[in-house]
């Protein structure tokens, strides 16, 4: 019997009206295949839905996928709602189309890592293995 005492649980969420879900699905599957439990919440999530799902599912990692360009509006709201819920210790990472210039302010916001197009999923898996606690 495999009995990982603390399994890594990851929420993969797509905030806003962004309909690009290929990347999120690719990442979700790769993480599942790496042995993580992945909660996929589907498209068009509000910041509140994301924060509340993270809380109820008690995830170790929140992964945001966004290709619409609305990250500078949505991510601060998500970070605020996570904090309000006492989820500051959650590892928040993101991926999708995020311009170079936005990376610094997002990191300042507490988003620990950002993965752009073409990132091998093994790199994402490795990052989570190393940094999730």
């Amino acid at each position, binding site marked *: *019997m*495999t*009995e*990982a*005492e*603390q*399994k890594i*649980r990851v929420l993969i969420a797509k905030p806003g009206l962004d309909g690009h879900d290929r990347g999120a699905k690719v990442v*979700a*599957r790769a*993480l*599942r*295949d*790496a*042995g*993580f*439990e*992945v*909660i*996929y*919440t*589907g498209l068009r*999530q*509000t910041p*509140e*839905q994301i924060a*509340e*799902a993270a*809380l*109820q*599912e*008690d995830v170790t990692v929140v992964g945001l996928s966004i290709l619409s360009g609305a990250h500078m509006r949505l991510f601060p709201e998500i970070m605020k709602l996570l904090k309000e*819920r*006492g*989820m500051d210790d959650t590892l928040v990472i993101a991926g999708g189309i995020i311009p170079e210039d936005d990376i610094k302010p997002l990191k300042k916001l507490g988003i620990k890592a950002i993965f752009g197009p073409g990132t091998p999923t093994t790199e994402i898996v490795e990052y989570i293995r190393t940094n999730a606690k």
Partner: protein
Amino acid sequence: MTQDTRKLIKQLLKGNRRAAARLMTLAESMSPEAHAAIKQLYPHTGKAHIIGVTGPPGSGKSTLVDKLIEEFRAQGRTVGVVAVDPSSPFTGGALLGDRIRMNRFASDHDVFIRSMGSRGSLGGLAWATHDVVHILDALGKDIIIVETVGAGQAEVDIIQIAETVVLLSVPGLGDDIQTIKAGIMEIGNVFVINKADLDGADRRYAELQMALELDRKPDGWQPPILKAIATTGEGVSEVVKAIQSHHDYLIESGEIAQNRERRYCAQLETIVEHSFIRKLFVEPEEQALFQQLVQEVNERKTDPYTAAERLILHLIKQKGN
């Protein structure tokens, strides 16, 4: 039990959602600490009406649960949901997707939804599903809905937990012989033919009716067969009425006592079984003894029965967890 766990329990009993979520994670670890926590909060359980929703993969269980939440909330009742999806037996990973269909209750803090991977348990639930239900119960949820993994014929563990089992089927799934043979037919208290908007719902209805007719009891609860379209909500209020009628029936007839006994008996069995398995496959000392006995049987120094007796004797000589 650590200070941390003690604090979480205190917060849980005050209705703190984050504490509930963290205790659920602890419960899933199946550790002695987890069991100590459940022991503490157990006296605060037993109030909720626990409803199981089961049926084949993709039959619309999550979509129906979403509509059930809406109905129960309209009645002013608080709702907890545990949704189980299968874990990969190879990697242990899982894609938990039931929540996709239940996303609209985020701002309603009287709804709490938790996804679980089955983590090696084969009966349609996870080992710790009981405990997560206990936690929702202690959190004060009036209604607790448990969605099983997509069930075939063997995944009938839901009757260990739920007072009322809603069994979904859909038009055009399998032939009538299949339906009659399947052990899963016997666990339903309310039958729902979902996706009634698709062709073949009437045929499905007739098949189910015939199958149920075959083992109709002379008295007692007669499981109703209802048609529903979970995506639009059509027929869902009838499903809720049937669930409530079943619950009323259990109480008025006194059958609730047997229903409880059956569930507690099964839960106890599960805990004992899992504790033994855990001992044998997780604790290094027992693991070593187990391996040694396998070796002895292999070398024909002993037989499997004697080996099993020695193992059991060894286990019961220890105390505690």
